């Protein structure tokens, strides 16, 4: 910069400015301005300002006060989510805690059909992973809604595979799945659940309420799936269902099922039932049915095969029922094992001629022999020493025609004709009942009769549920019911000795001897009552036994319906008893007998 220029500038500018301003401010054309006075202008602006502000205020009041709560709620609702916290269904375990039914986490695969661009292609991708036909998936993807299910209860691994595909519009929701890790083990006892997870059969149905528990819920504010910290939340914890511990021993159960299954098939029979009971407690250690089903896939089997026929079905017990007649006669002093009977080929009672299983010459049997040879005529003669009223009252005490008290769904109590009802009680009823026809029992009742004899004459109500544990794992054993004294301990002991005679070389049950153990039992072949035709057709072959006879630990009954190869209880049902009882004695660590069975004379 040059000094002269800087000096000149103030001079040059000074006179110019007024000149310029004068030029612009030329009031050549005066304009009418309404607010030309500053006072008016201020008022005007203030007025506008107040109007605008009051509009704002009104809006604010509307939002905050008038619609305040409503808006707050709706905004919160967009963030608030209520999640169902499903209660886990209780498990079933056997007496040792081996799981028989359990609940695991699973996923329902859901879809928002509006987000699916290519239903056919998506379905083709999903089909092999989910194992569902393409057609079914396409149907789910093209529903006119924003939500539909593609697959229910898939495993977490399957969902992981689906999720990895990251198909827009495909989501999942958590759920649970009922699984039976042992497959068909005890299936007819446990039952099964339907698609919605509620019990439809067996104990799953009978104990549904206890197993279900109560669902909880969780309400949280969430953005993009994440909780807003310190946001308002409300949670009701789910209460898981009770877990049921059964009295069943899964090892015995498996052994009984396999043996029964094999024998029913080998004899060409229609079906069969078998029960193992612990006489001292009434605990049922195993109960097997044929047919049975796979509870993991229950709808593949006919409903008929899903019934626990050990309690739902009744049959006429036949000769195994003679043990009740013997016990009553001995208890009442009508006879003792040595009492002598002369047995003709026919016996006429109430206008009917009764016969034994096979025609025979006149036999001379003791009471023990009558049981060992399973003579119907001998049993009728013995029962006449106490009369029909006493026999009737003992049959009642043994629990015939009454509920077992197990509360098993669909239990059938069987039938004992009413002595006070003329229509039910005819002249032939008494002799017929004495040898086990004309009355019906379920397999558990039949087993319970022998368990009563095994338990020194005290009948323990059959028990299937050992106890319950809650979600915290606290276990509460179910109460042992009080026993009912049916006959004296001495009578029971005498009857057991007679049952050992049945399994001796002299008896019908000699095939059921188990080396090292004293075994008592009774064979049976009964006419099978067919409800459809209202008459008898076919047979029920059975064997019920006690081991060891001197100190009973186990009672087992095996009944096979309509066998084709033979009708003898010892041939048809016996092998199952022998095989499973041999295993059971070792499995339960029951030491062999140290005493010899008494030799009761069977003939005179």
């Amino acid at each position: 910069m040059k000094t002269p220029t800087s000096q000149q500038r103030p001079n040059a500018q000074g006179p110019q400015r007024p000149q310029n301003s004068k030029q612009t401010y030329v009031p050549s054309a005066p304009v009418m301005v309404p607010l030309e006075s500053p006072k008016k202008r201020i008022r005007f602006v203030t007025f506008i300002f107040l109007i605008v502000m009051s509009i704002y205020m009104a809006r604010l009041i509307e939002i905050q006060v008038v619609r305040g709560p409503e808006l707050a709620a709706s905004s919160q609702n967009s963030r608030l989510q209520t999640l169902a916290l499903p209660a886990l269904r209780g498990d079933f375990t056997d007496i040792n805690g081996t799981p028989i039914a359990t609940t695991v986490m699973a996923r329902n695969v859901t879809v928002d059909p509006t987000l699916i661009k290519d239903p056919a292609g998506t379905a083709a991708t999903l089909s092999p992973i989910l194992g569902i036909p393409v057609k079914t998936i396409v149907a789910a993807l093209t529903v006119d809604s924003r939500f539909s299910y593609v697959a229910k209860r898939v495993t977490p691994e399957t969902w992981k595979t689906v999720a990895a595909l990251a198909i827009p519009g495909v989501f999942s929701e958590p759920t649970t799945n009922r699984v039976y890790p042992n497959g068909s083990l005890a299936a007819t006892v446990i039952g099964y659940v339907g698609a919605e997870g509620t019990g439809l059969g067996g104990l799953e149905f009978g104990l549904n309420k206890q197993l279900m528990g109560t669902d909880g819920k969780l309400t949280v504010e969430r953005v993009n799936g994440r909780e807003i910290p310190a946001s308002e939340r409300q949670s009701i914890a789910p209460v898981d269902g009770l877990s049921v511990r059964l009295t069943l021993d899964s090892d015995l159960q498996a052994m009984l099922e396999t043996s029964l299954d094999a024998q029913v098939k080998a004899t060409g029979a229609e079906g069969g039932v078998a029960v193992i009971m612990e006489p001292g407690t009434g605990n049922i250690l195993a109960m097997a049915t044929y047919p049975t089903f796979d509870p993991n896939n229950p709808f593949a089997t006919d409903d008929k095969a899903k019934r626990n026929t050990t309690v739902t079905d009744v049959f006429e017990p036949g000769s195994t029922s003679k043990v009740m007649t013997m016990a009553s006669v001995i208890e009442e002093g009508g006879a003792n094992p040595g009492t002598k009977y002369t047995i003709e080929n026919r016996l006429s009672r109430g206008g009917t001629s009764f016969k034994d299983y096979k025609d025979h010459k006149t036999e001379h049997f003791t009471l023990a022999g009558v049981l060992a040879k399973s003579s119907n005529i001998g049993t009728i003669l013995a029962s006449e020493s106490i009369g029909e009223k006493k026999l009737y009252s003992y049959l009642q005490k043994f629990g015939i025609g009454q509920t077992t008290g197990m509360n098993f769904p669909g239990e059938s109590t069987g039938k004992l004709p009413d002595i006070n009802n003329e229509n039910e009680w005819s002249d032939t009823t008494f002799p017929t009942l004495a040898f086990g026809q004309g009355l019906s029992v379920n397999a558990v009742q039949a087993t319970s009769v022998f368990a009563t004899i095994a338990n020194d004459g005290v009948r323990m109500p059959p028990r299937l549920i050992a106890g319950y544990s809650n979600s915290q794992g606290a276990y509460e054993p179910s109460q042992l019911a009080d026993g009912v004294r049916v006959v004296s301990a001495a009578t029971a002991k005498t009857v057991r000795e007679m049952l050992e005679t049945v399994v001796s070389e002299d008896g019908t049950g000699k095939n059921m001897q188990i080396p090292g153990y004293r075994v008592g039992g009774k064979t049976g072949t009964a006419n099978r009552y067919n409800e459809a035709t209202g008459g008898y057709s076919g047979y029920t072959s059975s064997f019920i036994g006690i081991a060891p006879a001197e100190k009973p630990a186990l009672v087992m009954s095996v009944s096979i319906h309509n066998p084709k190869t033979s009708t003898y209880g010892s041939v048809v049902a016996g092998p199952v008893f022998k095989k499973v009882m041999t295993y059971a004695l070792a499995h339960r660590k029951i030491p062999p007998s140290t005493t010899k069975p008494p030799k009761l004379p069977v003939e005179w």
Partner: protein
Amino acid sequence: MIVTGMMMLLYVNTLAAQASFQKHALQIQLSQMTAEEQTIASTVAAGESPGNLLITAQKMGMVPAETPVFLRLSDRKILGKPVVAVAPPVPVRAAAQ
């Protein structure tokens, strides 16, 4: 004072938000691991099941012992007669599961 307070508040809020993210991630991990655990548990239960054990044992050539022998400690007596077990002629229920 006020500025420090505001800064602290911001810091605490950030921490809380971060914890929330972490919680979400951990929850996902937890549910995955629970599912995995359940899967393994059911595999074990299926393997342990008497039916499968029987089949596996028979495949390995094992035979169920039918005559158990007991040693009574009180008088050192052997109860029962040991007999060599023979393989059952018919395989028991061919692989039901």
